[in-house]
């Protein structure tokens, strides 16, 4: 086991663990934000630079700081390493700058974006963004297109995290889209007329940290915070059938994978579960999902209406009341 200190909290992790995953083991406020890393996708990470942290002490053997900030998602823990995240002025300053970079070409169209309320970029901006934009130049613009029969691509909103590309490669096993061109002209595209179409293609919606890939069957139906997320399952031959239903009254508005507190799905689900099963009778409903206190979804206090629950402010988590 290796010992690591992050923001003065010490944790023991196995060899081969990244700083980010060690931080997630501790949990709470010291966990760096991650826009491109996705633990279930091999090769992801390192690109968005929001998880940069400072290494104050490289290891027991080499007690020197690293001059540049390092991406915590792809830097391995060494024994005796001392990491500074929220206690480092430099880290917070650079994170602010990186948040600004991610936003300069972003349309800031949250009022009409289906992802609003569950968007990693929105959360990042809320915590680390500047109050006003300093960018007054032209923004890149793309027209929205259908990249799958039920999947909309708003390239304007994309932050080029490559998660959907890895998903196509590793989960869908059939890649017809990718990142084309380069620099700030880079875009997600199929290049030729083509659809991302396969039993698991819908997962690219779930892995997208922003509103670039959205579910056409849910488009403009409701703001996510007006819907009630419920854990549900069904017998499915293609996937585990364990999903989150996003309900409005008795109607199923949307089906997604069950996401953890880092917005990663627990299990990838199939398109049949996601797009075809929109009746309550299709599902065995287990109960309301736990929603992070900071999420706007909890502003709807839906849980109080459905099942007694309280928010535990010291933990920053929602806990079910028995």
């Amino acid at each position, binding site marked *: 086991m290796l010992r690591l200190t992050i923001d003065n909290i010490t944790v023991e992790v196995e060899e081969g663990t990244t700083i980010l995953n060690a931080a997630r083991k501790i949990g709470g406020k010291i966990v760096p934000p991650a826009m491109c890393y996705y633990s279930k996708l091999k090769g992801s*990470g*390192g*690109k*968005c*630079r*929001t998880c*940069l942290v400072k290494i104050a002490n490289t290891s027991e053997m080499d007690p020197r700081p690293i*001059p*540049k*900030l390092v*991406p915590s998602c*792809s830097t391995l823990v060494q024994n005796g390493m001392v990491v500074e995240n929220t206690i480092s002025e430099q880290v917070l300053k*650079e994170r602010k*700058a*990186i948040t*600004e*970079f*991610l936003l*300069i*070409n972003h349309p800031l169209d949250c009022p009409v974006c289906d992802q609003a309320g569950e968007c990693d970029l929105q959360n990042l901006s809320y915590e680390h963004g500047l109050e006003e934009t*300093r*960018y007054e*130049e*032209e923004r890149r613009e793309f027209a929205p297109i259908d990249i799958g029969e039920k999947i909309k691509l708003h390239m304007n909103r994309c*932050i*080029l995290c490559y998660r959907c590309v890895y998903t196509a490669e590793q989960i869908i096993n059939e890649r017809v889209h990718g*990142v084309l*061109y*380069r*620099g*700030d*002209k*880079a875009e997600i595209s199929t290049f030729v007329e083509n659809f991302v179409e396969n039993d698991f293609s819908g997962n690219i919606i779930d892995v997208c940290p922003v509103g670039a890939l959205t579910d056409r069957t849910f488009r403009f139906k409701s703001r996510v915070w007006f819907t009630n997320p419920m854990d549900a399952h069904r017998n499915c031959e293609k996937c585990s059938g364990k999903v989150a239903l996003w309900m409005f009254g008795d109607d199923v508005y949307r089906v997604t994978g069950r996401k953890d507190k880092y917005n990663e799905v627990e299990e990838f689900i199939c398109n049949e579960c996601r797009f075809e099963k929109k009746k309550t009778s299709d599902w065995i409903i287990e109960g309301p999902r736990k929603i992070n206190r900071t999420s706007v979804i909890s502003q709807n206090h839906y849980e109080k209406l459905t099942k007694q629950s309280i928010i535990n402010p010291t933990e920053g988590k929602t806990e079910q009341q028995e």
Partner: protein
Amino acid sequence: MGGKILLEKINIPGIETFDIYRKSGGYSAVEKALKTMTPAEVVEEVRKSGLRGRGGAGFPTGMKWGFIDRKSEKPHYLICNADESEPGTFKDRYLMEHLPHLLIEGMICSAFALEAKTAYIYIRGEFKYLIGILNKALSEAYANGFLGKNILGTSYCLDIYVHPGAGAYICGEETALIESLEGKRGNPRLKPPFPAFFGLYSCPTVVNNVETLAAVTSILNMGGDFYSKLGNGKSTGTKLISACGNINKPGVYEIEMGITVEDFIYSEKYCGGIKGGKNLKAVVPGGSSVPVLPAQLILKTASGQPRLMTYESLAEGGFETGTMLGSGGFIVYDEDQCMVRNTMSFARFYHHESCGQCSPCREGTGWQERLLYRIEHGLGRAKDIDLLADISKHIEGNTICPLGDAAAWPVSSAIRHFRNEFEFHIEHPEIVKNISHGNIDKYRK
């Protein structure tokens, strides 16, 4: 010898052919290495020479070779980085065009040292005409038993192939080059792991610049100890400097490190002074990415010492008053050049060449260019200069590969040393709109 080692024989007619090159003593380093030395001894010789990577970073070559994973059972690869694309740099092209066998000889010795059986020359796509020259030289080396199976009757076998790029500066970064050689987009990889362990096809790989590999030939011929005594301090040996801009004699010069910058600019042996008898305004001494210095700081350090053509002397004063030797792309600007326009062109270059993988570089380089474009065209605002400096500060150090730094340094250094020109552009839009090029000093008052 006049400091000439690499280019010693460049004036011999026909030196680009195997026969003449061989008759002039060529390929003796290969004979020496393969017949009388072990790979470890070749590495040791290069380590002793103090040779530093000539591509720009200046990392000690012997040390880089020392990292290669010899325990690995996977094949080793040597890649020659001939993706010379840093604005101001054109030395490798010159070397390959005129002395292709010098490079091949250096590559054979280096591949032997690294126990590599395959080597690739990754050449930038724009240099397609050189592919024919290199391929001709390679086939001559094969025909004469210096490449292929059992070279010179030893058990050592080596194949060298030329591989073209297709227009991407980023592929000069070693991991992007490896990606490109694997037939992918030139997106740099995260390091670690380093190529010495996981390089081409996840095998142990060393990537060296053309000039570095050519220098290995000279080092083996004269001995590492002897080579290390040439030059100045830790800047050992000779360096090819490609001089361009507003000078009388642009071209590629081989210098023994340690001559003064002043001598290099003004002596007849090298640049021959500023064109048209004008005054020197600024120099970018190591390719577009290194900080620009005004005349007084390039000729003398802040402490008043003459600035020398060495890694250390050019870097003296840090980024406040110093710069870097970089790739040796020596760009000279006369008094009539507009630093805002030049900086804009460099910012445009790095914007165009950003791979787009990580956010500070992808978004920041474009922002820099757009701001500079406005300032240059008389549309700048007072707050733009500080904003620009701030953007470059946040690109620097926050990216996967050094392209972010390379994009930031020319901008931050230009603002540091030529802030008055930026201010003038903003204060006098009517003048810069009409006269967007040239020296603004003429229009002051």
